Protein backbone atom coordinates (compact mmCIF):
# COMPACT_ATOMS: atom_id res chain seq x y z
CA UNK A 1 0.00 0.00 0.00
CA UNK A 2 1.31 3.39 -0.97
CA UNK A 3 -0.28 5.00 2.07
CA UNK A 4 1.56 2.69 4.47
CA UNK A 5 4.88 3.36 2.74
CA UNK A 6 4.31 7.06 3.04
CA UNK A 7 3.50 6.79 6.73
CA UNK A 8 6.68 4.85 7.46
CA UNK A 9 8.80 7.25 5.41
CA UNK A 10 7.39 10.24 7.21
CA UNK A 11 7.64 8.68 10.68
CA UNK A 12 11.25 9.54 11.65
CA UNK A 13 11.00 13.29 11.25
CA UNK A 14 7.33 14.09 11.49
CA UNK A 15 5.69 10.98 12.89
CA UNK A 16 4.22 12.74 15.88
CA UNK A 17 2.50 15.33 13.73
CA UNK A 18 0.90 12.96 11.24
CA UNK A 19 -2.75 12.23 11.99
CA UNK A 20 -3.61 10.02 9.04
CA UNK A 21 -2.50 9.01 5.56
CA UNK A 22 -5.61 8.33 3.52
CA UNK A 23 -6.32 7.48 -0.15
CA UNK A 24 -7.66 10.34 -2.24
CA UNK A 25 -9.34 10.59 -5.62
CA UNK A 26 -6.82 11.86 -8.15
CA UNK A 27 -3.83 11.98 -5.80
CA UNK A 28 -1.44 9.36 -4.47
CA UNK A 29 -2.64 9.96 -0.95
CA UNK A 30 -3.53 12.72 1.42
CA UNK A 31 -1.58 13.32 4.61
CA UNK A 32 -3.52 14.92 7.44
CA UNK A 33 -1.23 16.60 9.94
CA UNK A 34 -1.33 18.73 13.07
CA UNK A 35 -0.98 22.45 12.27
CA UNK A 36 1.42 22.91 15.21
CA UNK A 37 4.09 20.78 13.55
CA UNK A 38 3.54 22.11 10.04
CA UNK A 39 7.13 23.07 9.33
CA UNK A 40 8.45 19.64 10.37
CA UNK A 41 5.98 17.94 8.08
CA UNK A 42 6.88 20.26 5.18
CA UNK A 43 10.60 19.58 5.67
CA UNK A 44 10.06 15.83 5.88
CA UNK A 45 7.92 15.81 2.74
CA UNK A 46 10.36 18.03 0.87
CA UNK A 47 13.68 16.51 1.95
CA UNK A 48 12.90 12.86 2.75
CA UNK A 49 10.15 12.13 0.27
CA UNK A 50 11.51 14.38 -2.49
CA UNK A 51 8.36 16.39 -3.17
CA UNK A 52 10.27 19.46 -4.29
CA UNK A 53 7.55 21.23 -6.21
CA UNK A 54 4.63 22.93 -4.47
CA UNK A 55 1.70 23.23 -6.85
CA UNK A 56 -1.12 24.71 -4.88
CA UNK A 57 -2.09 26.04 -1.47
CA UNK A 58 -5.75 26.52 -0.75
CA UNK A 59 -8.08 26.91 2.16
CA UNK A 60 -11.67 25.80 2.76
CA UNK A 61 -14.12 27.28 5.23
CA UNK A 62 -16.01 24.41 6.88
CA UNK A 63 -18.01 26.87 9.04
CA UNK A 64 -16.90 25.24 12.33
CA UNK A 65 -13.26 25.09 11.33
CA UNK A 66 -11.04 25.90 8.36
CA UNK A 67 -8.89 23.54 6.37
CA UNK A 68 -5.63 24.34 4.61
CA UNK A 69 -4.51 21.99 1.88
CA UNK A 70 -1.28 21.73 -0.08
CA UNK A 71 -0.67 19.80 -3.31
CA UNK A 72 2.97 18.87 -3.91
CA UNK A 73 4.64 17.06 -6.81
CA UNK A 74 7.72 14.90 -6.98
CA UNK A 75 9.75 14.76 -10.14
CA UNK A 76 11.23 11.40 -9.10
CA UNK A 77 8.07 9.41 -8.48
CA UNK A 78 5.93 11.58 -10.83
CA UNK A 79 3.21 11.71 -8.23
CA UNK A 80 1.02 14.28 -6.57
CA UNK A 81 0.61 14.25 -2.83
CA UNK A 82 -1.94 16.13 -0.79
CA UNK A 83 -1.31 17.61 2.65
CA UNK A 84 -4.07 19.00 4.77
CA UNK A 85 -4.50 20.46 8.23
CA UNK A 86 -7.59 21.49 10.15
CA UNK A 87 -7.38 24.87 11.86
CA UNK A 88 -9.74 25.67 14.70
CA UNK A 89 -10.32 28.75 16.77
CA UNK A 90 -11.38 32.29 16.06
CA UNK A 91 -8.07 33.31 14.48
CA UNK A 92 -6.91 30.29 12.48
CA UNK A 93 -3.23 30.39 11.69
CA UNK A 94 -0.50 28.05 10.47
CA UNK A 95 3.22 28.32 9.84
CA UNK A 96 4.13 29.60 6.38
CA UNK A 97 5.59 27.10 3.90
CA UNK A 98 7.82 29.69 2.22
CA UNK A 99 11.09 28.55 3.90
CA UNK A 100 10.63 25.09 2.37
CA UNK A 101 8.89 25.93 -0.91
CA UNK A 102 9.46 29.56 -1.99
CA UNK A 103 6.58 29.28 -4.44
CA UNK A 104 4.11 29.27 -1.54
CA UNK A 105 4.42 33.06 -1.32
CA UNK A 106 1.57 34.17 -3.57
CA UNK A 107 -0.59 31.13 -2.83
CA UNK A 108 -0.56 31.97 0.88
CA UNK A 109 -1.26 35.62 0.25
CA UNK A 110 -4.29 34.57 -1.76
CA UNK A 111 -5.47 32.06 0.85
CA UNK A 112 -5.24 34.68 3.59
CA UNK A 113 -7.04 37.25 1.51
CA UNK A 114 -9.92 35.05 0.38
CA UNK A 115 -10.46 32.69 3.32
CA UNK A 116 -8.82 34.56 6.19
CA UNK A 117 -6.23 32.00 7.26
CA UNK A 118 -3.16 33.66 8.73
CA UNK A 119 0.30 32.38 7.79
CA UNK A 120 2.91 33.04 10.47
CA UNK A 121 6.33 34.32 9.44
CA UNK A 122 5.26 34.98 5.88
CA UNK A 123 7.82 37.33 4.29
CA UNK A 124 5.43 39.63 2.46
CA UNK A 125 1.84 39.40 3.64
CA UNK A 126 -0.17 41.97 1.68
CA UNK A 127 -3.36 42.03 -0.29
CA UNK A 128 -2.88 40.32 -3.62
CA UNK A 129 -6.09 40.26 -5.62
CA UNK A 130 -8.30 42.77 -3.85
CA UNK A 131 -7.57 46.45 -3.18
CA UNK A 132 -5.46 47.25 -0.13
CA UNK A 133 -8.40 48.57 1.89
CA UNK A 134 -10.66 45.58 1.30
CA UNK A 135 -11.91 44.43 4.68
CA UNK A 136 -13.67 41.13 3.94
CA UNK A 137 -12.69 37.54 3.27
CA UNK A 138 -15.04 36.76 0.39
CA UNK A 139 -14.67 32.98 0.28
CA UNK A 140 -16.05 32.51 3.77
CA UNK A 141 -19.43 30.76 3.77
CA UNK A 142 -20.96 33.66 5.67
CA UNK A 143 -20.18 36.02 2.77
CA UNK A 144 -23.22 35.84 0.48
CA UNK A 145 -23.45 36.99 -3.11
CA UNK A 146 -26.46 38.96 -4.26
CA UNK A 147 -27.69 40.90 -7.26
CA UNK A 148 -25.96 44.28 -7.46
CA UNK A 149 -27.87 47.24 -6.12
CA UNK A 150 -29.31 49.73 -8.56
CA UNK A 151 -26.70 52.34 -9.29
CA UNK A 152 -27.08 55.56 -11.16
CA UNK A 153 -26.44 55.12 -14.87
CA UNK A 154 -24.45 57.80 -16.60
CA UNK A 155 -26.07 58.55 -19.93
CA UNK A 156 -25.09 61.01 -22.53
CA UNK A 157 -27.55 63.07 -24.76
CA UNK A 158 -26.19 63.10 -28.25
Amino acid sequence: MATDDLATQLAPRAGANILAVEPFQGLTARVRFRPEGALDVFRAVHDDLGYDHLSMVGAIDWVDHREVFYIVWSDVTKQYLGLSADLTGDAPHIESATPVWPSANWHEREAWELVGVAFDHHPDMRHLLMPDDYAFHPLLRSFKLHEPEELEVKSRSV
Partner: protein
Amino acid sequence: MWVNMGPQHPMTHGLWNLRVKIDGELIVDVDPEVGYLHRGIEKISEDRHYNEIITLMDRCCYVAGIAWEHVYIGAAENALHITAPERAQWLRVMCDELQRLASHIMWYAAFVQDLGLMSPFLYGMRDRDLILDLFQSFTGGRLTYEYNRVGGVRNDVPSGFTDRCRKVMDWLMDRFVEYDRLCLGSEIFRRRCDGLGVLKAKECVDLGVTGPMLRSAGVARDLRKDRPYAVYDRVEFDVAKADAADVTARYLVRMEEMRQSVRIVRQTLDWLDHHPGPVLADHLPRWLGAPYAPMGNEGYLLKRNFPRGTGFAAVEEPHGEAQAYVVNTGGEHPYRTKFRSPVFVNLSAAKHYMIGYRVADIPPIMGSVDICVGEVDR
Protein backbone atom coordinates in the same frame (compact mmCIF):
# COMPACT_ATOMS: atom_id res chain seq x y z
CA MET B 1 12.75 55.03 -8.76
CA TRP B 2 9.60 52.97 -8.99
CA VAL B 3 7.89 52.97 -12.38
CA ASN B 4 4.43 51.58 -13.05
CA MET B 5 4.09 49.62 -16.28
CA GLY B 6 0.37 49.07 -16.41
CA PRO B 7 -2.51 48.51 -15.98
CA GLN B 8 -2.76 50.17 -19.38
CA HIS B 9 0.50 49.51 -21.18
CA PRO B 10 1.07 47.86 -24.55
CA MET B 11 3.55 45.45 -22.92
CA THR B 12 1.15 43.92 -20.41
CA HIS B 13 -1.25 42.08 -22.78
CA GLY B 14 -3.90 42.23 -20.15
CA LEU B 15 -4.87 43.92 -16.99
CA TRP B 16 -1.98 43.86 -14.56
CA ASN B 17 0.65 46.22 -13.35
CA LEU B 18 4.39 45.63 -13.31
CA ARG B 19 6.02 47.92 -10.79
CA VAL B 20 9.69 48.23 -11.68
CA LYS B 21 12.39 49.82 -9.56
CA ILE B 22 15.04 51.19 -11.87
CA ASP B 23 18.48 52.64 -11.43
CA GLY B 24 19.12 54.42 -14.70
CA GLU B 25 18.29 51.74 -17.25
CA LEU B 26 18.96 48.85 -14.88
CA ILE B 27 16.11 46.91 -13.25
CA VAL B 28 16.79 46.71 -9.51
CA ASP B 29 13.53 45.31 -8.22
CA VAL B 30 10.15 44.29 -9.59
CA ASP B 31 6.77 43.85 -7.95
CA PRO B 32 3.99 42.50 -10.15
CA GLU B 33 0.62 43.77 -9.01
CA VAL B 34 -2.30 41.59 -10.04
CA GLY B 35 -5.98 41.40 -9.19
CA TYR B 36 -7.33 43.95 -11.64
CA LEU B 37 -9.34 41.19 -13.29
CA HIS B 38 -10.29 39.26 -10.14
CA ARG B 39 -13.82 38.14 -10.92
CA GLY B 40 -14.40 35.78 -8.02
CA ILE B 41 -14.85 32.64 -10.12
CA GLU B 42 -14.24 30.42 -7.10
CA LYS B 43 -17.00 32.18 -5.16
CA ILE B 44 -19.52 32.21 -8.03
CA SER B 45 -18.91 28.48 -8.47
CA GLU B 46 -20.40 27.86 -5.04
CA ASP B 47 -23.79 29.01 -6.33
CA ARG B 48 -23.72 27.15 -9.61
CA HIS B 49 -24.51 23.65 -10.82
CA TYR B 50 -21.63 21.49 -11.91
CA ASN B 51 -22.29 22.00 -15.61
CA GLU B 52 -22.82 25.73 -15.23
CA ILE B 53 -19.28 26.22 -13.98
CA ILE B 54 -17.98 25.20 -17.42
CA THR B 55 -19.16 28.60 -18.65
CA LEU B 56 -16.91 30.29 -16.11
CA MET B 57 -13.95 28.08 -17.02
CA ASP B 58 -14.01 29.30 -20.62
CA ARG B 59 -13.77 32.87 -19.40
CA CYS B 60 -11.18 31.99 -16.77
CA CYS B 61 -8.48 31.63 -19.39
CA TYR B 62 -9.73 33.14 -22.58
CA VAL B 63 -6.96 31.94 -24.87
CA ALA B 64 -7.13 28.34 -23.64
CA GLY B 65 -10.78 27.94 -22.72
CA ILE B 66 -11.24 24.32 -23.66
CA ALA B 67 -8.10 23.24 -21.79
CA TRP B 68 -9.46 24.85 -18.64
CA GLU B 69 -12.78 23.08 -19.20
CA HIS B 70 -10.79 19.87 -19.22
CA VAL B 71 -9.08 20.79 -15.94
CA TYR B 72 -12.35 21.45 -14.18
CA ILE B 73 -14.18 18.52 -15.76
CA GLY B 74 -11.43 16.14 -14.67
CA ALA B 75 -11.76 17.23 -11.06
CA ALA B 76 -15.56 17.32 -11.14
CA GLU B 77 -15.77 13.82 -12.60
CA ASN B 78 -13.41 12.61 -9.91
CA ALA B 79 -15.51 14.25 -7.23
CA LEU B 80 -18.77 12.85 -8.62
CA HIS B 81 -17.34 9.40 -9.52
CA ILE B 82 -18.33 9.61 -13.18
CA THR B 83 -16.27 8.36 -16.11
CA ALA B 84 -16.54 9.76 -19.61
CA PRO B 85 -16.80 7.41 -22.63
CA GLU B 86 -13.67 6.67 -24.64
CA ARG B 87 -14.63 8.73 -27.67
CA ALA B 88 -15.23 11.76 -25.45
CA GLN B 89 -11.72 11.35 -24.04
CA TRP B 90 -10.26 11.35 -27.54
CA LEU B 91 -12.29 14.39 -28.46
CA ARG B 92 -11.00 16.16 -25.36
CA VAL B 93 -7.43 15.38 -26.31
CA MET B 94 -8.03 16.69 -29.81
CA CYS B 95 -9.60 19.87 -28.42
CA ASP B 96 -6.72 20.38 -25.98
CA GLU B 97 -4.17 20.15 -28.75
CA LEU B 98 -6.10 22.39 -31.13
CA GLN B 99 -6.40 24.87 -28.29
CA ARG B 100 -2.67 24.64 -27.62
CA LEU B 101 -2.05 25.50 -31.25
CA ALA B 102 -4.43 28.45 -31.10
CA SER B 103 -2.97 29.69 -27.83
CA HIS B 104 0.64 29.41 -28.96
CA ILE B 105 -0.12 31.16 -32.24
CA MET B 106 -1.85 33.94 -30.32
CA TRP B 107 1.23 34.19 -28.11
CA TYR B 108 3.46 34.30 -31.17
CA ALA B 109 1.39 37.06 -32.76
CA ALA B 110 1.36 39.22 -29.65
CA PHE B 111 4.93 38.56 -28.55
CA VAL B 112 6.67 39.22 -31.83
CA GLN B 113 4.62 42.35 -32.39
CA ASP B 114 6.08 43.73 -29.16
CA LEU B 115 9.56 43.31 -30.58
CA GLY B 116 8.75 45.58 -33.49
CA LEU B 117 7.94 43.02 -36.18
CA MET B 118 4.46 43.69 -37.51
CA SER B 119 3.93 40.98 -40.12
CA PRO B 120 4.04 38.01 -37.69
CA PHE B 121 0.93 39.45 -36.02
CA LEU B 122 -0.97 39.41 -39.29
CA TYR B 123 0.28 35.94 -40.23
CA GLY B 124 -0.45 34.57 -36.78
CA MET B 125 -3.98 35.93 -36.58
CA ARG B 126 -4.69 34.60 -40.08
CA ASP B 127 -3.65 31.06 -39.14
CA ARG B 128 -5.34 31.19 -35.75
CA ASP B 129 -8.65 32.02 -37.37
CA LEU B 130 -8.45 28.75 -39.30
CA ILE B 131 -8.25 26.81 -36.03
CA LEU B 132 -11.08 28.83 -34.55
CA ASP B 133 -13.16 27.99 -37.62
CA LEU B 134 -12.62 24.32 -36.83
CA PHE B 135 -13.75 24.91 -33.26
CA GLN B 136 -16.73 26.84 -34.47
CA SER B 137 -17.83 23.99 -36.72
CA PHE B 138 -18.44 21.65 -33.79
CA THR B 139 -18.82 23.86 -30.70
CA GLY B 140 -20.41 26.96 -32.17
CA GLY B 141 -18.06 29.37 -30.44
CA ARG B 142 -14.83 31.07 -31.32
CA LEU B 143 -13.38 31.67 -27.87
CA THR B 144 -15.84 30.35 -25.34
CA TYR B 145 -17.01 26.88 -26.21
CA GLU B 146 -18.96 25.28 -23.32
CA TYR B 147 -18.20 21.98 -25.03
CA ASN B 148 -17.26 19.63 -22.20
CA ARG B 149 -19.90 18.19 -19.90
CA VAL B 150 -19.65 16.21 -16.71
CA GLY B 151 -19.59 12.71 -18.17
CA GLY B 152 -18.43 13.46 -21.69
CA VAL B 153 -18.75 16.18 -24.27
CA ARG B 154 -21.82 17.95 -25.61
CA ASN B 155 -21.88 16.65 -29.18
CA ASP B 156 -19.83 14.76 -31.70
CA VAL B 157 -17.88 16.38 -34.51
CA PRO B 158 -19.83 16.84 -37.75
CA SER B 159 -19.20 14.72 -40.83
CA GLY B 160 -16.32 15.92 -42.94
CA PHE B 161 -14.67 17.56 -39.94
CA THR B 162 -11.64 15.28 -39.86
CA ASP B 163 -10.76 15.97 -43.47
CA ARG B 164 -11.05 19.71 -42.98
CA CYS B 165 -8.94 19.48 -39.85
CA ARG B 166 -6.24 17.50 -41.68
CA LYS B 167 -6.06 20.19 -44.35
CA VAL B 168 -5.58 22.88 -41.72
CA MET B 169 -2.87 20.82 -40.02
CA ASP B 170 -0.99 20.46 -43.31
CA TRP B 171 -1.28 24.19 -43.90
CA LEU B 172 0.02 24.95 -40.40
CA MET B 173 3.05 22.69 -40.73
CA ASP B 174 4.14 24.75 -43.74
CA ARG B 175 3.49 27.99 -41.89
CA PHE B 176 5.73 27.03 -38.98
CA VAL B 177 8.69 27.08 -41.35
CA GLU B 178 7.65 30.58 -42.33
CA TYR B 179 7.34 31.67 -38.71
CA ASP B 180 10.82 30.43 -37.91
CA ARG B 181 12.27 32.18 -40.92
CA LEU B 182 10.61 35.43 -39.89
CA CYS B 183 11.90 35.29 -36.32
CA LEU B 184 15.07 33.25 -36.09
CA GLY B 185 16.31 34.78 -39.31
CA SER B 186 15.68 38.31 -38.07
CA GLU B 187 18.60 40.10 -36.52
CA ILE B 188 16.27 42.32 -34.51
CA PHE B 189 14.62 39.29 -32.97
CA ARG B 190 17.87 37.55 -32.05
CA ARG B 191 19.47 40.63 -30.57
CA ARG B 192 16.44 41.41 -28.44
CA CYS B 193 15.90 37.84 -27.22
CA ASP B 194 19.14 35.92 -26.88
CA GLY B 195 20.34 35.56 -23.31
CA LEU B 196 17.47 37.45 -21.69
CA GLY B 197 15.26 36.45 -18.79
CA VAL B 198 17.32 33.45 -17.76
CA LEU B 199 15.74 31.23 -15.10
CA LYS B 200 17.70 28.05 -14.42
CA ALA B 201 16.18 24.67 -13.69
CA LYS B 202 16.82 24.65 -9.92
CA GLU B 203 15.17 28.03 -9.45
CA CYS B 204 12.28 26.99 -11.69
CA VAL B 205 11.52 23.98 -9.50
CA ASP B 206 11.85 25.97 -6.26
CA LEU B 207 9.56 28.70 -7.53
CA GLY B 208 7.00 26.28 -8.93
CA VAL B 209 7.43 27.45 -12.51
CA THR B 210 5.92 25.03 -15.04
CA GLY B 211 5.15 24.77 -18.70
CA PRO B 212 7.31 26.04 -21.56
CA MET B 213 9.34 28.16 -19.11
CA LEU B 214 10.43 25.06 -17.21
CA ARG B 215 11.03 23.00 -20.33
CA SER B 216 13.17 25.75 -21.81
CA ALA B 217 15.47 25.28 -18.79
CA GLY B 218 16.20 21.69 -19.72
CA VAL B 219 13.64 19.87 -17.55
CA ALA B 220 11.56 17.60 -19.76
CA ARG B 221 8.52 17.68 -17.51
CA ASP B 222 5.16 17.36 -19.16
CA LEU B 223 2.06 16.04 -17.41
CA ARG B 224 0.94 14.50 -20.67
CA LYS B 225 3.95 12.16 -20.45
CA ASP B 226 4.60 11.97 -16.71
CA ARG B 227 1.06 11.47 -15.50
CA PRO B 228 -1.06 10.76 -18.57
CA TYR B 229 -4.68 11.83 -18.29
CA ALA B 230 -7.50 11.15 -20.77
CA VAL B 231 -5.85 9.13 -23.56
CA TYR B 232 -2.47 10.79 -23.71
CA ASP B 233 -0.82 7.43 -22.98
CA ARG B 234 -2.14 6.18 -26.32
CA VAL B 235 -0.73 8.90 -28.59
CA GLU B 236 2.86 9.35 -29.66
CA PHE B 237 4.67 12.60 -29.19
CA ASP B 238 7.92 14.04 -27.87
CA VAL B 239 8.34 16.55 -25.10
CA ALA B 240 9.83 19.76 -26.45
CA LYS B 241 12.91 20.88 -24.54
CA ALA B 242 15.65 23.48 -24.76
CA ASP B 243 18.64 24.25 -22.57
CA ALA B 244 19.39 27.95 -22.78
CA ALA B 245 16.55 28.98 -20.40
CA ASP B 246 16.26 32.37 -22.10
CA VAL B 247 13.63 34.05 -24.25
CA THR B 248 14.79 32.42 -27.48
CA ALA B 249 14.68 29.01 -25.81
CA ARG B 250 11.06 29.59 -24.79
CA TYR B 251 10.28 30.54 -28.37
CA LEU B 252 11.90 27.35 -29.63
CA VAL B 253 10.05 25.21 -27.08
CA ARG B 254 6.68 26.65 -28.04
CA MET B 255 7.38 26.23 -31.75
CA GLU B 256 8.33 22.58 -31.21
CA GLU B 257 5.24 22.06 -29.05
CA MET B 258 3.08 23.28 -31.90
CA ARG B 259 4.64 20.71 -34.23
CA GLN B 260 4.03 17.98 -31.66
CA SER B 261 0.44 19.17 -31.24
CA VAL B 262 -0.14 18.78 -34.96
CA ARG B 263 1.24 15.27 -34.64
CA ILE B 264 -1.17 14.43 -31.80
CA VAL B 265 -4.15 15.96 -33.59
CA ARG B 266 -3.45 13.83 -36.66
CA GLN B 267 -3.42 10.69 -34.50
CA THR B 268 -6.67 11.60 -32.79
CA LEU B 269 -8.31 12.27 -36.15
CA ASP B 270 -7.29 8.81 -37.35
CA TRP B 271 -8.78 7.25 -34.23
CA LEU B 272 -11.99 9.27 -34.43
CA ASP B 273 -12.50 8.20 -38.04
CA HIS B 274 -12.57 4.53 -37.14
CA HIS B 275 -14.23 4.40 -33.74
CA PRO B 276 -17.76 5.83 -33.66
CA GLY B 277 -19.57 5.72 -30.37
CA PRO B 278 -21.33 7.70 -27.68
CA VAL B 279 -19.76 10.90 -26.42
CA LEU B 280 -21.78 11.33 -23.22
CA ALA B 281 -22.03 8.81 -20.40
CA ASP B 282 -25.32 6.95 -19.91
CA HIS B 283 -27.45 7.15 -16.79
CA LEU B 284 -26.34 10.58 -15.75
CA PRO B 285 -28.58 12.08 -13.09
CA ARG B 286 -31.07 14.59 -14.36
CA TRP B 287 -29.75 17.40 -12.20
CA LEU B 288 -26.53 17.30 -14.20
CA GLY B 289 -28.54 18.46 -17.18
CA ALA B 290 -28.02 15.37 -19.31
CA PRO B 291 -30.41 15.37 -22.28
CA TYR B 292 -31.57 11.73 -22.07
CA ALA B 293 -31.76 11.35 -18.31
CA PRO B 294 -34.78 9.65 -16.78
CA MET B 295 -37.71 11.94 -16.13
CA GLY B 296 -39.58 12.28 -12.89
CA ASN B 297 -38.17 11.90 -9.45
CA GLU B 298 -35.34 9.57 -10.36
CA GLY B 299 -32.99 12.46 -10.84
CA TYR B 300 -33.65 13.76 -7.38
CA LEU B 301 -33.25 10.32 -5.88
CA LEU B 302 -29.91 10.05 -7.57
CA LYS B 303 -28.94 13.42 -6.21
CA ARG B 304 -29.73 12.42 -2.67
CA ASN B 305 -27.82 9.20 -2.99
CA PHE B 306 -24.86 10.53 -4.89
CA PRO B 307 -21.56 9.73 -3.22
CA ARG B 308 -19.61 12.58 -1.73
CA GLY B 309 -15.98 13.15 -2.45
CA THR B 310 -13.25 15.52 -3.33
CA GLY B 311 -11.74 15.52 -6.78
CA PHE B 312 -8.39 16.66 -8.05
CA ALA B 313 -7.17 16.86 -11.62
CA ALA B 314 -4.11 18.29 -13.33
CA VAL B 315 -3.82 19.10 -17.01
CA GLU B 316 -0.91 20.37 -19.08
CA GLU B 317 -2.46 23.59 -20.28
CA PRO B 318 -0.71 25.69 -22.99
CA HIS B 319 0.83 27.87 -20.27
CA GLY B 320 1.81 25.10 -17.88
CA GLU B 321 0.27 22.84 -15.28
CA ALA B 322 -3.28 23.75 -14.39
CA GLN B 323 -4.99 22.04 -11.49
CA ALA B 324 -8.46 21.98 -10.07
CA TYR B 325 -9.70 20.88 -6.66
CA VAL B 326 -13.43 20.34 -6.35
CA VAL B 327 -15.12 19.52 -3.04
CA ASN B 328 -18.46 17.73 -3.39
CA THR B 329 -20.54 17.48 -0.24
CA GLY B 330 -23.54 15.93 -1.90
CA GLY B 331 -25.41 18.97 -3.17
CA GLU B 332 -26.13 20.31 -6.61
CA HIS B 333 -23.33 22.81 -6.24
CA PRO B 334 -19.73 22.13 -5.36
CA TYR B 335 -18.89 23.19 -1.83
CA ARG B 336 -15.59 24.72 -2.84
CA THR B 337 -13.57 24.90 -6.03
CA LYS B 338 -9.95 25.91 -6.17
CA PHE B 339 -7.94 26.39 -9.32
CA ARG B 340 -4.21 26.53 -9.71
CA SER B 341 -3.14 28.68 -12.58
CA PRO B 342 0.32 28.17 -14.08
CA VAL B 343 0.66 31.80 -15.11
CA PHE B 344 -0.08 32.92 -11.55
CA VAL B 345 3.00 31.04 -10.36
CA ASN B 346 5.17 31.96 -13.34
CA LEU B 347 4.37 35.61 -12.75
CA SER B 348 5.06 35.38 -9.02
CA ALA B 349 8.64 34.41 -9.88
CA ALA B 350 9.16 37.61 -11.88
CA LYS B 351 11.75 38.90 -9.41
CA HIS B 352 14.08 36.05 -10.30
CA TYR B 353 14.16 36.43 -14.06
CA MET B 354 13.95 40.20 -14.41
CA ILE B 355 16.42 41.78 -12.01
CA GLY B 356 19.65 42.80 -13.67
CA TYR B 357 18.26 43.40 -17.14
CA ARG B 358 17.47 46.72 -18.81
CA VAL B 359 14.14 48.49 -19.12
CA ALA B 360 14.01 47.82 -22.85
CA ASP B 361 14.25 44.08 -22.12
CA ILE B 362 10.97 44.02 -20.24
CA PRO B 363 8.67 43.48 -23.28
CA PRO B 364 10.57 40.45 -24.60
CA ILE B 365 10.93 38.88 -21.15
CA MET B 366 7.32 39.38 -20.09
CA GLY B 367 6.16 38.41 -23.57
CA SER B 368 7.99 35.11 -23.31
CA VAL B 369 6.12 34.25 -20.09
CA ASP B 370 2.86 34.25 -22.09
CA ILE B 371 0.59 35.95 -19.61
CA CYS B 372 -3.15 35.42 -19.58
CA VAL B 373 -4.52 37.62 -16.81
CA GLY B 374 -7.87 35.87 -16.74
CA GLU B 375 -6.35 32.81 -15.15
CA VAL B 376 -3.93 34.73 -12.94
CA ASP B 377 -6.72 36.59 -11.18
CA ARG B 378 -9.58 34.12 -11.75
